[in-house]
């Protein structure tokens, strides 16, 4: 299994680069990873990432955008603005979780 090193921190990832051990995640790591995709983490970004992590812990699967909206109350349009392009994947990556597998 590959591992990544970023600013002195080494962590295990899957073939696509998603963290495989959520325990190796930290807010500082997320901030450094976010910089790689041109995002500066604000409290709004962090709220989404934190919800993802807690929902994952609760349900065992990474929430989809739809679930971020229906269970977490996040505005989908805003998530597209905060994490442009591929919001759900980007959030899962930054939250140190596997990518979401739900269809909706």
């Amino acid at each position: 299994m590959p591992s990544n090193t970023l600013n002195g921190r080494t962590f295990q990832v899957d073939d696509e680069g998603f963290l495989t051990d959520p325990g190796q995640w930290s807010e500082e790591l997320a901030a450094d990873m976010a910089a790689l995709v041109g995002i500066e983490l604000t409290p709004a970004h962090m709220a989404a990432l934190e919800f993802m992590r807690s929902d994952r812990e609760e349900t065992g699967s990474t929430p989809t955008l739809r679930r971020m909206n229906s269970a977490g109350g996040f505005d989908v349009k805003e998530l597209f603005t905060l994490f442009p392009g591929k919001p759900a994947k980007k959030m899962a990556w930054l939250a140190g979780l596997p990518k979401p597998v739900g269809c909706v």
Partner: protein
Amino acid sequence: MSDSSTPLGATVTPAAPDGFVMPDFGHVDAPHAATETSPEAALGVPAGPRKMAFICSKGNLDMAYPALIMGNAALGEGIEVHIFFTFWGLDIINRRTNADLKFTMTGNTAMHMPQLGRVHDGLEHRSLPQGLGNLPGMTGMATRMMKRQMEEMEIPTVPEFLDLLQASGAHMYACRLTFEMNKIIEADLHPGVERVLSASDFIVVTNGAQIIFV
């Protein structure tokens, strides 16, 4: 990532270290772009960001979902999505009808009841007799059943799905010919529908798109 074309004042994105494994977020200017030497170019895939267009021509509940689900998935992958609702598919975006789309087993030979497996092993794979679908109340029952199953899977209802697509930036259109033929009024359309569009305008708008007909 950044080059001389970076606009003044834009944040410069640091490059990932060598050997760093990360998902493809399509961050290069043109995601999924075919360059002159790429294998995609040899296959005739147009250069530029990927674009998908769905044509929804059916108004049954079960035929509303495929394009809504795939369109939503495509938006989540950063793909530009256009959806054209035509003929019976207009019922999907008409607010007078879209909360009440029906699922009928008539004409559907792939209709099974998983519950029958408990009565006799193997029965769950048998097609239900077509005659059943014609009995009064069967369509209502099949519709309720399907809606319940979708809800259990946390799939949104059709009106909620349109809200989700709208929030995710889908471009949705009503077909001009059938819109006029069915005497629909614009006020009845879901607010996510951008325009009533003629067939030729749809062809223009979807230049370079992968087109999926449902």
